[in-house]
């Protein structure tokens, strides 16, 4: 069969959601941020909530997320997305409100904000992109950097005696009474992407049921920061991140 007979509108089975704008994403080739943007956009499209969703972008590589998903956005100071989300959701309870934050933004400078928003049980969604590094500023150590992991600021590998231990933020917020759904996902292959998408959809649905905060960690890559090719970075993540940051639901009530 000729290719031209296959490539016809009626045979289309998958394409870019119109919720993603036509802007070319500034992310490095193969970056997990792009995949997660896409699945958030698809969830919003499938739920039909484009006019009812407000995203809060962080400081970090995803600061420009508002250029890519065609919804309303706010852009927060570093680590303060949960505070903006708190106000936004309390003032607009009919809106779906989510934050999108890296591990430098959420686990380091914004650690206090996220703990208290989760502890108050704000009816928001927190999407936590854990790439174990500060991507935007050149690959410095983050609270989530693994022991032994080489970064710009741990050139001989992270040492517990010098740098402390990697933090499992997701397990910590699961212990707080205010959270209703806490899960850790990834996005490196089709099955993982589909699971992560389901988790994000569930988190969005929860935010309208007065159940408290939904927290979705996506174990991610920063192949530029890790100095690997995108494909090798995904492999490194599977081999090194997954044993420590174990995938799956941690809390669901």
């Amino acid at each position, binding site marked *: 069969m000729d290719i031209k007979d*296959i490539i016809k509108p009626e045979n*289309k089975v998958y394409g870019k959601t119109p919720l993603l704008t036509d802007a070319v994403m500034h992310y490095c080739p193969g970056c997990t941020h792009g995949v997660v943007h896409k699945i958030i956009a698809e969830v919003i499209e499938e739920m039909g909530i484009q006019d009812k969703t407000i995203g809060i972008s962080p400081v970090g590589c995803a600061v420009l997320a508002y250029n890519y998903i065609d919804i309303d956005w706010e852009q927060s100071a570093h680590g303060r997305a949960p505070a903006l989300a708190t106000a936004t959701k309390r003032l607009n309870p009919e809106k779906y409100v989510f934050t999108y934050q890296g591990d430098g933004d959420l686990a380091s400078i914004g650690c206090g904000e996220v703990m208290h928003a989760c502890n108050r049980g704000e009816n928001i969604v927190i999407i936590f992109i854990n790439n174990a590094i500060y991507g935007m500023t050149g690959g410095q150590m983050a609270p989530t950097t693994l022991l032994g992991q080489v970064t710009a600021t741990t050139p001989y590998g992270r040492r517990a005696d010098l740098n402390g231990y990697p933090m499992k933020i997701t397990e910590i917020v699961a212990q707080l009474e205010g959270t209703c759904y806490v899960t850790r996902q990834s996005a490196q292959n089709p099955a993982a992407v589909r699971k992560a998408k389901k988790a994000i959809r569930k988190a969005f649905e929860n935010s309208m049921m007065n159940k408290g905060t939904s927290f979705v960690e996506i174990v991610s890559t920063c192949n530029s920061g890790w100095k690997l090719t995108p494909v090798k970075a995904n492999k490194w993540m599977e081999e090194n991140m997954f044993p420590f940051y174990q995938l799956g639901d941690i809390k669901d009530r």
Partner: protein
Amino acid sequence: MAVKGAIVVDIEKCKGCSVCIANCPTNTIALSNEVNGKGFNFAIMANPDNCTGCTNCATVCPDAVITVYRVKI
């Protein structure tokens, strides 16, 4: 029932990351020898006869530049 697929890549937006290639179960995709306007070798259907239209490549593409078509034959 047998199926046949095909993909269309928005080559000017493709960044040549190769994540699609790693996730294609039928070895359909490869990077081009030429580069696009940004200097990236872009994804092409190197073995178009292999494609089953499973959508794996498009599902993992970080830049959402792959459209997938499928027909039953």
